[in-house]
């Protein structure tokens, strides 16, 4: 699971502190990214006492190294880090497809800050000062979420469809899609490698009272195909005449 040596590469000069109780076998591992040593120490003690294994770093770059080298059950990220804004860090982690839930900590009290934090990819937000019982409860709630509920993003190869921000990206770059094309891409990504009947697409894209022109699905598919191709998507939409469509990941067998 963990390559600790990679995470603490001396080349990066990383100061990763492992703080845990007597045994670390099968314990959920949590990364605390907090430059305030008092708060960081307090959180590590609390989490350690609850039976979690805790790694603590103080810089965003150290956090990226650790989170890419280790599978964490939870990331706790302070917003005001010395080397990089915590929001940027969270965006970068999500761009790198780090899927662990993220609890963001901040002393910024405005509603806009909280909204920005959540829309950047954090799963929950805790404003400092906070009560330790509330911190514990939020950690427990994030850890018991089923994996499928933690993330509202769907992926196929280098394509990411984010239902929260209503954005689709290829290799981190946003795609210029109209609403129906976005819905179509989401459906195909969720059913990647499976044939999606034309009727199912119609039911997803249109309501009972919508008038659907005979070639509207074909037109959306045509446009989507072009957008994906020019963005360098590593997947292609395959057509099965009279049946439907399928998103085929490059390198996968078409007959799959």
């Amino acid at each position, binding site marked *: 699971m963990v390559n600790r040596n990679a995470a603490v590469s001396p080349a990066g000069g990383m100061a990763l502190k492992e703080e845990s109780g007597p045994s670390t076998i099968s314990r959920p591992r949590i990364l605390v990214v907090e430059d305030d040593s008092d708060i960081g120490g*307090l959180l590590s003690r609390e989490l350690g006492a609850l039976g979690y294994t805790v790694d603590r770093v103080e810089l965003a770059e150290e956090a990226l190294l650790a989170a890419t080298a280790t599978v964490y059950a939870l990331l706790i990220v302070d917003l005001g880090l010395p080397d990089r804004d915590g929001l940027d860090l969270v965006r970068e982690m999500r761009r790198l497809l780090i899927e662990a839930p993220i609890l963001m900590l*901040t002393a910024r009290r405005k509603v806009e800050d909280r909204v920005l934090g959540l829309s950047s990819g954090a799963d929950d937000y805790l404003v*400092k000062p906070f009560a330790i019982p509330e911190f514990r409860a939020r950690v427990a709630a994030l850890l018991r979420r089923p994996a499928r509920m933690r993330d509202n993003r769907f992926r196929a190869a280098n394509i990411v469809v984010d239902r929260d921000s209503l954005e689709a990206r290829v290799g981190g770059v946003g795609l210029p899609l109209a609403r129906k094309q976005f819905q179509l891409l989401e459906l195909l990504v969720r059913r990647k490698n499976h044939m999606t009947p034309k009727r199912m697409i119609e039911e997803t894209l249109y309501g009972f009272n919508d008038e659907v022109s005979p070639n509207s699905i074909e037109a959306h598919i045509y446009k989507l195909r072009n957008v994906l191709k020019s963005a360098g998507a590593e997947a292609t939409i395959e057509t099965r005449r009279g049946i439907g469509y399928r998103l085929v990941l490059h390198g996968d067998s078409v007959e799959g």
Partner: protein
Amino acid sequence: MNGWKPCPDKTALALLDPDGSFLERLQQDREALKALLERLPEEGGDRKTALTKLEKLAHRLAGAAGTFGHDAIGEAAMALEDCVAEAAVVPTAPLIDMAIEKAGRLHGLLNKAVEET
């Protein structure tokens, strides 16, 4: 602060800060605040630097003090942070006076916490 009330008894404080490192920090902050407070009445570049440092110190304390059970310090730091942020943009005499008053109040609370513990 998320509806949490202070727990001022020493046992609770000791649980949150078993090695006393936060208390040590309060001591350092008290000294730093005193030095900055002395620089505030003087106009010019030094005041600007002092305001920036004061805002940073207040921001850190506003976030941490309440979490460690020092609610009154956290609230005073929060009030100071808001005031200093405004004074840093337009350092009018009334705002500077208000910042000095709030910094003085915070200094008094830090004194109390350090002396009592």
